[in-house]
């Protein structure tokens, strides 16, 4: 079994069989991570550069750990403190790094489509999108799917609601693509200003502007971060009001009288989109998501590294 693609640019480009293969391989890597020695020699001959043009904690550490657990060599690059501030272009930067014999690129960039641009110019280098602008964050969607499967047994027929800033969220878009491809039902919920107008027709998801109603409908609620850096756009009046109208509180959760799974891709704004007693409550699998992220990223790197050598 092999992936149908050489790069992981987005979930949009993957076949359902690719997603299954990644999730299945991730389950084996999760077992590796429970061993006394949490490391395998698979990518001993591979060098990977982590190019982060945008800030990140979880994704960056998770990728780096995944690479190290696979015995790959890693280089870390962040835009601040590099020649990017002297005006070097993305393609020049990457070409210079690749000339030092690097095999794969993991990239986060604030411009949507940046990894697609690289893949077009560097067809022989495996490129992994670690989040591009407001487009996709494929490994987050894969680890969310893995966590849902682990908790509930499968994806098919599951009802998943994504709550919050759907408009600016690459996590939301990747999750929608993935869940739809794997046969889950998807709803988006939040204030009308944060939900794209034609999303129902474009992506085939349900839409609700009432979080209570959405929670009653779903098996799994994936609560997204309110992107405070976009506050100046006045998409809702205040954080306090957002919390009262759309935040997940203990009282709201208890009122629906149903067991649901609560997820959040991090970083959490406690007391805005989710209250602390929910984020840390028994329904929450937020920390399991982070744990699973390493195994899922190991699976992606492993499967793409095998694919890469095939071309050369």
């Amino acid at each position: 079994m092999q992936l149908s693609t050489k790069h992981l640019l987005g979930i949009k480009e993957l076949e359902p069989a690719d997603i299954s293969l990644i999730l299945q391989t991730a389950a084996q890597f999760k077992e590796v991570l429970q061993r006394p020695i949490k490391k395998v020699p698979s990518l001993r001959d591979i060098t990977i550069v982590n190019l982060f043009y945008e800030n990140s904690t979880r994704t960056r550490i998770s990728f780096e750990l995944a690479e190290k657990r696979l015995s790959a060599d890693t280089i870390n690059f962040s835009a601040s403190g590099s020649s990017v501030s002297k005006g070097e272009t993305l393609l020049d930067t990457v070409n210079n790094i690749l000339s030092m014999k690097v095999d794969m690129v993991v990239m986060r960039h604030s411009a949507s489509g940046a990894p697609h641009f690289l893949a077009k110019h560097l067809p022989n280098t495996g490129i992994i999108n670690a989040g591009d602008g407001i487009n996709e964050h494929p490994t987050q969607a894969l680890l969310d799917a893995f966590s849902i499967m682990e908790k509930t047994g499968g994806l098919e027929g599951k009802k998943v609601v994504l709550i919050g800033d759907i408009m600016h969220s690459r996590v939301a878009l990747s999750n929608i693509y993935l869940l739809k491809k794997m046969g889950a039902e998807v709803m988006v919920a939040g204030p009308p200003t944060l939900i794209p107008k034609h999303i129902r027709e474009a992506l085939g998801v349900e839409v609700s502007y009432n979080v209570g109603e959405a929670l009653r409908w779903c098996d799994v609620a994936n609560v997204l971060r309110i992107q405070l850096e976009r506050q100046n756009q006045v998409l809702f009046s205040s954080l306090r009001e957002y919390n009262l109208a759309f935040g997940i509180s203990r009282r709201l959760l208890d009122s629906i009288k149903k067991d649901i799974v609560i997820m959040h891709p991090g970083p959490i704004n406690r007391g805005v989109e989710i209250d602390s007693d929910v984020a840390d409550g028994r329904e929450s699998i937020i920390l399991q998501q982070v744990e699973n992220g390493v195994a899922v990223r190991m699976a992606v790197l492993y499967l793409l590294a095998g694919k890469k050598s095939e071309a050369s």
Partner: protein
Amino acid sequence: MAHQAVEQYDHLHDLVFIAIQPRGVFVGQKIAGIIQGLFPNEKIQYGVLDITFYRDDIRKELHTANETHIPFSIENKRVVLIDDVLYTGRTIRAALDALQDFGRPRKVELCVLIDRRFKRELPIQADYFGRAIDTHDSQKVKVNPETEEVLLY
């Protein structure tokens, strides 16, 4: 083979059996079943090991990973590795590497159903084998788990 593997022992404390995924598993289950019958008052320690991530040919061909399940410590134990066919020895090399990540066994032995003699690419030999056969490189040997037939083609 099962009898050979335990003949110098009168208990199973320090003895563990680990079958190699995927095709060593049916041999392993069979052997584990027989040995359990010989020691009805003890619980046999039996696990399965997947060596996909330790292969030396992952750049040539990508294999699908299978489950690894070793629910006991192998530290200081005598480990009997079980597979169906011993051919080049590369699978066993990978299995020895994988085993190291679970601890330091006192001793590792190898038990295979079929030994394809004279085809080794590494200095690895079986301690116990069901049958040794001589084959050409172009031939394939497969053991059918249902009928327990050995197919040569």
